[in-house]
């Protein structure tokens, strides 16, 4: 029977061409948009998690309230005790300290006077501690543009654009000038070992990286850190699990009167990511709903026109004794096959385009160079298994819905009037 219907569809293209085209385009657009949106969101989440938020983050309460100001005078102290405690309680999370701080990088001339200087954002990471996973997490080895990463104390890497602005090359000595946790003046010489590309315009503008131990010594933050970031062993963010851990941790300190008690937040609770992600997910759902609704209307209309064109055919088939239910059933079977073909072609095209955008991406660095949130320079689509059905099922469903609505007329035909209608 399917073979018979399939032959009918192939031979009578007027039956199938427009619906197949409509479904193909609709499914392709849905798959492409969904893959692209998912890719962009996933890139933003990953970029934020790696560079700033972690999957979980612990700060002191007042630091959390003012974290945009990088208030290291409100930093977490007695870090070792805290780390041991949370390592035992949450063994599936890897914790790593980070300090963010501002300051000036000053490049001396041969007399030790200022040659060039510029303000920058310092990031202190546990890069000399191989167990921290920071090198792999931030893909630092591959991000090196010139020279190498710090291998010992007293070494520093700068973002490539920042180094270019300061006109310095690997091997040169530079001075950091800033303030300690308590506000004392700090001068610290470093050897610049290389330059790095973060892939985030906000960070590429003027960021430098030193080892966490150097920062702790320099900023008088012994056994302290601004932020303690947690990453799941699975490397994948799980909001339910993260919320559970954060709630459990925070409940320990809910009655604490210590002004500087630690506070844990999840990735989604930072940088307005919850709102952004929720809005984007809603947008995705709305997009699919509109697609099904619009396509159903178009296909209903196409079905009605097809039904009118095949009015005589249905009449003859009913007059010959075929049941209305059977005619309707075969119509739906036809619709299913048309929907299947359209959805299949649409999905293949959509996934193909997504794959292209995943590999090549779209460079938005110029548009986000003044962005105050961490955004990737190149946005990419993301091909995932859900793309195989996100357009496919609605494509099939809309064709069936459209045909079912259009085919209702079959049941309204009165057999007694058929011969008159058919002018037999």
């Amino acid at each position: 029977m399917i073979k018979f219907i399939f032959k009918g569809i192939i031979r009578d293209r007027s039956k199938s061409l427009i619906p197949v085209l409509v479904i193909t385009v609709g499914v392709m657009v849905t798959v492409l948009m969904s893959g692209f949106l998912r890719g962009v969101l996933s890139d933003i989440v990953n970029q934020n998690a790696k560079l700033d938020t972690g999957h979980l983050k612990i700060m002191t309460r007042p630091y959390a309230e003012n974290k945009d100001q990088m208030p290291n005078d409100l930093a977490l102290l007695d870090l070792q005790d805290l780390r041991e405690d949370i390592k035992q309680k949450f063994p599936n999370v890897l914790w790593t300290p980070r300090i963010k701080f501002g300051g000036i990088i000053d490049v001396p001339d041969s007399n030790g006077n200022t040659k060039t200087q510029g303000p920058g954002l310092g990031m202190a990471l546990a890069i000399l501690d191989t167990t921290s996973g920071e090198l792999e997490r931030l893909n630092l080895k591959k991000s090196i543009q010139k020279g190498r990463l710090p291998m010992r104390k007293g070494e520093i890497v700068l973002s490539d654009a920042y180094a270019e602005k300061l006109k310095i090359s690997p091997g040169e000595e530079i001075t950091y000038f800033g303030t300690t946790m308590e506000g004392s003046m700090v001068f610290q010489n470093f050897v610049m070992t290389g330059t790095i590309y973060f892939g985030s315009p906000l960070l590429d503008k003027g960021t430098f990286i030193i080892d966490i131990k150097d920062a702790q010594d320099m900023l008088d933050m012994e056994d302290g850190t601004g932020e303690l970031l947690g990453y799941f062993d699975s490397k994948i963010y799980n909001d339910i699990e993260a919320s559970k851990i954060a709630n459990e941790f925070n409940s320990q300190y809910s009655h604490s009167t210590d002004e500087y008690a630690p506070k844990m937040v999840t990735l989604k609770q930072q940088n307005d990511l919850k709102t952004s992600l929720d809005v984007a997910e809603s947008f995705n759902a709305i997009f699919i709903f509109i697609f099904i609704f619009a396509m159903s209307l178009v296909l209903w209309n196409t079905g009605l026109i097809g039904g009118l064109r095949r009015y005589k055919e249905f009449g003859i088939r009913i007059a010959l004794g075929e049941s209305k239910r059977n005619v309707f059933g075969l119509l739906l079977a036809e619709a299913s096959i048309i929907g299947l073909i359209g959805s299949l072609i649409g999905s293949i095209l959509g996934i193909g385009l997504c794959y292209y955008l995943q590999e090549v991406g779209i460079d938005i660095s110029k548009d986000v160079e003044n962005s105050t949130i961490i955004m990737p320079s190149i946005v990419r689509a993301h091909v995932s298994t859900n793309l195989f059905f996100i357009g496919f099922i609605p494509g099939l469903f809309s064709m069936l819905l459209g045909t079912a609505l259009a085919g209702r007329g079959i049941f309204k035909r009165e057999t007694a009037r058929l011969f008159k209608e058919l002018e037999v």
Partner: protein
Amino acid sequence: MKKILFVLLFCAYFSNDLSAQQSSKEALEIIKKVDKNMFSETQIITSEMIVYGKRKSRTIRSKGYSKGQQNNLTEYLSPEREKGTKMLKLDNRLWIYSPATDRTIQLSGHLLRQSVMGSDLSYEDMMEERKLSDLYNTKIVREEIYQGRPSWIMELTAFVDDLAYDKRILWVDKNRFVPLKENLYAKSGILLKTTLFMNIKQIDGRWYPTRLNYKDVLKDGKGTDFVILDIKFNPAISDEYFSKSILRK
């Protein structure tokens, strides 16, 4: 009748204008007396800056040498971390020398608006040593008793462009010609900082505040205290103190 009315209005206008001119002249005289009290051709000050941090407070002792309105050298004496650090201001340029790194860093532009050692003072504030009468138009707003002292409240509006504060409201002691309080405003009219002048003592025949509290109103906390331990007016200071070579010595 019309002529009489015209003459009366004319007289009223001019007497008003004359009184405004006299008030402005009086205000300028007051500010000049304040300048005379607060400034000297040369000065050596040993002081302590108490910075009230959120977790703990720090006291930084320094010795400052100044000559004229443009040259100033500050050497930090304690704590250990700051000891030996020198700040030299020549005209509108500022250098900071750190003995730990043997580096001299020049600060300029917006970097001068950064806080000095976490205090409520910026480098720009530390550098500003010009006389008020050379920078601001003045007028007396009203008179009141402030902290038990009869005072003028004066409004100072900048007539030069390169100032950190476009407007100042100053409480001036009517008998001692010394400021008691000061509010500093941005060009937009927003209050940026307040300064309280306390422990006013007579030193070498002039009244001088020996404890000041600077408060950046945009920051939390108690502000920064500046305590003068010792001050010498018009001592002889060698020009050597105001050259870059002094930094490494």
